[in-house]
């Protein structure tokens, strides 16, 4: 055989029917075609069908670990099931060398009424072990799962953590050539998770190939040496884990921005009726934002906020890390407003009002005197320090002489900061939303203090403070 691959996926396509009825109809048709000696209808989409996977290809070798990420519905599980042979491809092929151990769900096939001991035996057989192998590895399986005292108890009485531990222990003890893992590591306490990672690294060192499907950038980053990102069945191809993290985060940010727009910004269209708003309509606006997304005194009205490219002032929703962001405010002024102040605040995914962009402060107390009419105000945020993520823009108009909002509109627009290519924001998982560049250097080494108060390592003591 040529090459030393263990897993080879070759332009894999797979489709599904969107509705149960369509799936029934096409299932019957495909079964009929098969019975008549023909192939299933897999070249094109029939009405109501969609591609769950499109032209996915990659190749893995001994000891390699691939992380597969994607938002819900991206095709991860379908890919894993194709790798496991549960589903058959519509086009293309999956080739695997050696024994496949699958952790698609640890403890699959556990029989709740039987004891842990009996289930180890059954599960071992299911994973392709011989009875002799199971007997040989039995003690190791039980001790890794930490279930020595409970092994003769019915599995029904196990906690979910115990079940997963036992399932994981069996699967990783079968010495698989290829191990498929589906998000099971999230279960179990921290100590066990640590042991799982150690075990997975161990079986990789023995030459096993690991495919890990996960929603955790951190888990993939620490476990895998390459990644595959799926978006609506389209694969990124094999990329670095850093790139995988970037792609996955970006997708999540985009979805968050779309969601925010859907939830908060349809009000813009409702307010469009205010275009030439009547006095009554303006007077009836909510004064303060107790749960209202927009309101004010009615002296002025923010009709629209656009997030723009700062050069062309065209609509734009995504920016590189640190890139200037343009904001455009469309205002209708009903009554004369002297000494107006335009102000933006920005919300991150989990924090509100993380920063202020204010015409009074930023323009050196430049106050605008507005006559009735329509205005467009353009603002450039020169060097924002937002970390990659999705952000919402709140806007309001105030007046120096009035403590309150002439008009406010919250979550009026949103934008996404893309994860940068040149640095890896591993703290993406942490909730920080602002980033400052900093330098780190070891200025001096302090000796560790021993328990009795004397200094410990004398080698350091000499170099300090000299």
């Amino acid at each position, binding site marked *: *055989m040529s090459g030393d691959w263990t897993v080879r996926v070759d332009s894999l396509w797979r489709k*599904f029917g969107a509705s149960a009825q369509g*799936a*029934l109809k096409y*299932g*019957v048709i*495909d*079964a009929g075609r*098969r*019975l008549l000696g023909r*192939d*299933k209808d*897999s070249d094109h989409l029939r009405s109501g069908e969609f591609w769950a996977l499109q032209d996915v290809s990659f190749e893995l070798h001994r000891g390699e670990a691939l992380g597969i990420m994607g938002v819900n519905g991206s095709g991860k599980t379908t890919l894993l*099931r*194709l790798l*496991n*042979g*549960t*589903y*058959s*491809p*519509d*086009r*293309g*092929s*999956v*080739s*695997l*060398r*050696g*024994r*496949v151990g*699958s952790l*698609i*769900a640890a403890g*699959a*096939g556990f*029989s709740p*009424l*039987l004891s842990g001991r*009996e289930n180890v*035996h*059954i599960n071992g*057989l*299911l*994973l392709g072990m*011989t*009875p002799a192998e199971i007997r040989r590895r039995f003690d190791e399986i039980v001790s890794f799962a930490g279930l020595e005292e409970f092994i003769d108890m019915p599995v029904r009485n196990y906690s979910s953590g115990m079940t997963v531990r036992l399932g994981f222990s069996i699967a990783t003890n079968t010495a698989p*050539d290829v191990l498929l893992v589906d998000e099971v590591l999230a279960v179990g306490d921290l100590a066990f998770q640590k042991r799982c990672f150690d075990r997975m690294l161990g079986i990789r060192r023995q*030459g096993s190939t690991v495919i890990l499907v996960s929603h955790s950038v951190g888990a993939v980053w620490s476990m895998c040496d390459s990644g595959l990102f799926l978006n609506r069945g389209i694969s990124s191809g094999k990329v670095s884990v850093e790139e995988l993290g970037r792609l996955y985060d970006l997708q999540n940010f985009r979805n968050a921005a779309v969601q925010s727009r859907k939830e908060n910004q349809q009000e813009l269209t409702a307010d469009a009726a205010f275009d030439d708003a009547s006095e009554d309509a303006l007077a009836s606006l909510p004064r303060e934002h107790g749960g209202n997304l927009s309101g004010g005194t009615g002296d002025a009205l923010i009709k629209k906020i656009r997030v723009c490219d700062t050069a062309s002032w065209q609509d734009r929703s995504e920016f590189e890390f640190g890139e200037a962001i343009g904001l455009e405010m469309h205002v209708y002024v009903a009554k004369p407003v002297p000494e107006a102040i335009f102000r933006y605040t920005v919300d991150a995914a989990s924090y509100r009002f993380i920063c202020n962009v204010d015409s009074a402060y930023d323009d050196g107390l430049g106050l605008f005197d507005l006559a009735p009419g329509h205005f467009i105000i353009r603002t450039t945020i020169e060097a924002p320090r937002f970390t990659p993520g999705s952000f919402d823009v709140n806007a309001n108009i105030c007046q120096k002489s009035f403590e309150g909002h002439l008009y406010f509109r919250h979550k009026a627009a949103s934008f996404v900061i893309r994860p940068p290519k040149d640095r890896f924001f591993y703290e993406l998982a942490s909730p920080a939303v602002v980033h400052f560049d900093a330098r780190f250097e070891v200025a001096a080494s302090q000796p560790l203090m021993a328990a009795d108060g004397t200094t410990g390592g004398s080698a350091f003591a000499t170099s300090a403070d000299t």
Partner: protein
Amino acid sequence: MSSRNEQITIYTANDRRGGILRTAVRSFQEVWRFRQLVWTLFSRDFKAQFKQSILGYFWTVLGPILGVFSFVFMNYMGILNPGKTVVPYPLYAFIGTSLWGFMMGSIGYMSSGLNAHSELIMRTNIPKIALAASAFANITYNALVSLALIALFMVLSRVHLGLGWLVFPFLALPLIVLGSGIGLAISVVGIIARDIAKLVNQFFGLMIFLTPVFFVADDIHNRLLHRVIMLNPLTYLVEFPRSVLLSQPSGFASLYLAAAVASFLIFLIGIKVFDLVQDLVAERL
């Protein structure tokens, strides 16, 4: 590393091809390769089934007896006139329903096998034919119980228990084989279209009235019905083994043989259908 298994598995869109016999041979090889598992799955389900019931293993004995009870009851009430039987009617009906039960049990266990193991289909990569074959253990077990009960009832009825009883299981085999073939086909097609299994059950629910299971064919005086019964191949699959068991002469040997051959052919077709359609079922589970 030399101990590593170098077997290459390839999944493509339309994997399984080859003639009916090749398919059958490959299927048997797969079942044999996983025989440990087949056995373990059976004993697992078997144990689990009875661990929670008061009567426990006694249920496997009770089932066949209850199956014949309604016919015997109707006979005693005079509602059912089965004709003149050579042995006491309860024994005659019990042998008939046991034979019928071999076939229906095979259909039932085989056809529900994949559904019952849907979790394993989704989460492991055991060949589906091996999962389906775990039903054979159930079928065999129930057949053995029936055979023992038949012997017991024959002794209790003072009917001579001879060589016929030893040959009987082999003569009953075509019914099991036929049922398994039908069951295998239903097990895959029935997952795609759920009402197929119901249709087949309804069909055989009617067929029991056109097969001399609990009545004597020659005592049916309606000529049309009698003709239909004699055209029904199941008649010979039931009639001949029973005659041999009861040491009665039977003129049906050649017709039985033809029906038996047909049963094996249907079994092979069932395996082929299973093989052709099996990769379409996972998404319908």
